[in-house]
């Protein structure tokens, strides 16, 4: 379980995050949505330990982030960045094995190879193992990076918490693979991992999130279950668009439709 308390962060005198307190629970997918510049990526970077907040603290599994040795937390916390710039001709297999870096001192074990293979299967790229990473399409690269991060937190010691931080995991993916990526996030949550994802597609968020946080100008505009949060009135206020809910008669699911 990850708890943030009163996180405030400014850059160049501008307050980007303003007194943010929230909890990411193990076994749940928490999705953050919000307009551009709301501070979502900054918040994720604070959870990832890349940025230090001006005030407030982040506690993961009972210890503040500063108290976690890097070598230890990297075994249980995976971070998928918005974009990855890898320009060296690694094979796809090798990229995914890099995700196992925290788990070995120099040479991968057979278990590492096995996990890498399974992670590749999970993102539907089993045949891509020997392809050169730099020749892949943008979406394929994103999936390989996802598999790398999954391989990193593949199995956690019994009783230990684990955390996945995904910054726009569906960016650049086709319709089918968006569902694949989020299905995987759900599967990891089911195994007990706390999953935190930033998304832009509200309907995707609604169908895969247990908990949604709408961030607007560094503050929480709404938080709760997708049904609670995705109200036309809230969406109109936060995103400055017209919104309404349409109900699909067959499945009973509601969809958010927006217009400018």
């Amino acid at each position, binding site marked *: 379980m990850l708890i943030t308390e009163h996180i405030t962060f400014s850059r160049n005198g501008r307050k980007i995050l303003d007194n943010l307190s929230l909890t990411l629970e193990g076994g749940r997918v928490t999705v953050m949505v919000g307009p551009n510049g709301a501070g979502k990526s900054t918040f994720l970077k604070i959870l*990832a330990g890349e940025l230090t907040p001006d005030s407030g603290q982040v506690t993961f599994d009972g210890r503040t982030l500063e108290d976690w040795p890097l070598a230890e937390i990297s075994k249980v916390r995976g971070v998928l960045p918005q974009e990855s710039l890898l320009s060296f001709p*690694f094979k796809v297999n090798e990229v995914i094995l890099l995700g196992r870096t925290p788990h070995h001192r120099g040479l991968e074990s057979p278990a590492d190879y096995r996990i890498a293979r399974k992670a590749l299967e999970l993102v539907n790229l089993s045949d891509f193992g020997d392809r050169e990473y730099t020749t892949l399409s943008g979406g394929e690269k994103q999936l390989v990076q996802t598999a790398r991060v999954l391989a990193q937190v593949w199995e956690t010691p019994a009783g230990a918490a684990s955390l996945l931080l995904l910054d726009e995991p569906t960016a650049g993916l086709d319709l089918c693979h968006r569902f694949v990526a989020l299905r995987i996030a759900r599967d990891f949550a089911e195994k007990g991992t706390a999953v935190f994802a930033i998304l832009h597609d509200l309907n995707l968020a609604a169908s895969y999130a247990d908990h949604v946080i709408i961030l607007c100008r560094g503050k929480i505009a709404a938080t709760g279950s997708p049904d609670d949060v995705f109200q036309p009135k809230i969406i109109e206020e936060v995103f400055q668009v017209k919104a309404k809910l349409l109900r699909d008669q067959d499945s009973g699911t509601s969809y958010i439709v927006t217009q400018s």
Partner: protein
Amino acid sequence: MSGAAKNTRKRLFLTGLAVLLVVLALLSICLGPVKIEFGQIIALAGSRLGSNAGAVDYAPFTEETLWSILWAVRLPRTLLAILVGAALAVAGAGMQGLFRNPLADPSLIGVSAGAAMGAVAVMVIGENILVLLPGWLDPLAVPLAAFFGGIGATLLVYHLSKVEGRTLVATMLLTGIAVNALAAAFIGLMMNVSDNRELRDFVFWSLGRLSDASWKNLGAIAPFVLVPLAVYPFYARALNAFLLGESEARHLGIDTQRTKMTIIFLCAAMVSATVAICGIIGFVGLVVPHLVRLMVGPDHRYLLPASALLGGALLLAADLLARMVNAPAELPIGVVTALLGAPFFLSLLYFSRHRVWA
């Protein structure tokens, strides 16, 4: 999957490179204005170790003459070529991993030039300072000055071209141009105040040469080269993670700050040591890691040792060429590596011009 099989192939490649290095080293010892045969080398070594292997024909030379050529000339030169080649290639591989860019060659981005400035300063004005230092520091004075120059240039190019974990490739290369120009001007200035003999010495040094090989010089640079060569492999895992990006490496549990500083300091140490004795020998750090990547991929666990071996082999080959082409006169080896390396660099730019290097 064939993970294990592939590693076998990589190890085979390493073994092949080691064999190549040994063969070239033997050639380098044997060939020259005076040819020494392999059998004679064995006999010479044997008789020094006290075992009299019987009569070996040394005509038209005496055993003493051949031994002194072997011991005082060929052997130090061969070892120097290996040390310098390995140092430059591994330094190049390290810089490229750190900058996450295959164009980061120590001579292109100004590390060598910075070291050259340091070395020149001590060579010319140093005699007045040297008397103040304890005598045992004398042979280390030039390498040390080169080291500080090299460190300065590396830190400069690093801080100018790395912004929020990304490398600004243009800035990286432009910083190199600026430092190179500064070093050229500085060396030119020093040439102005040199006498004729010093001038000639300077010219050949600044073109890159191996002709200053001696046991004393080898001893002076050995620690600067051997320590980094021994330490770098411990950072192979970190450098691999670095290729993904700096924050990605951190997320994989790598102490990025320590990695960066270690790589920078050790790279500057290796490059500076070679510059102090041999001047600027360009493109080895660019060409060698690139060739190795084509063969075994970018995994630093293989890239680093393979670059060391191929770097040594390449410089031995270049030195043989430099000695043989116009014997008994010899070309400065920096001229040979530039003649081979610059077209290689241009072709690298040509084939990658559509690629965005971030």
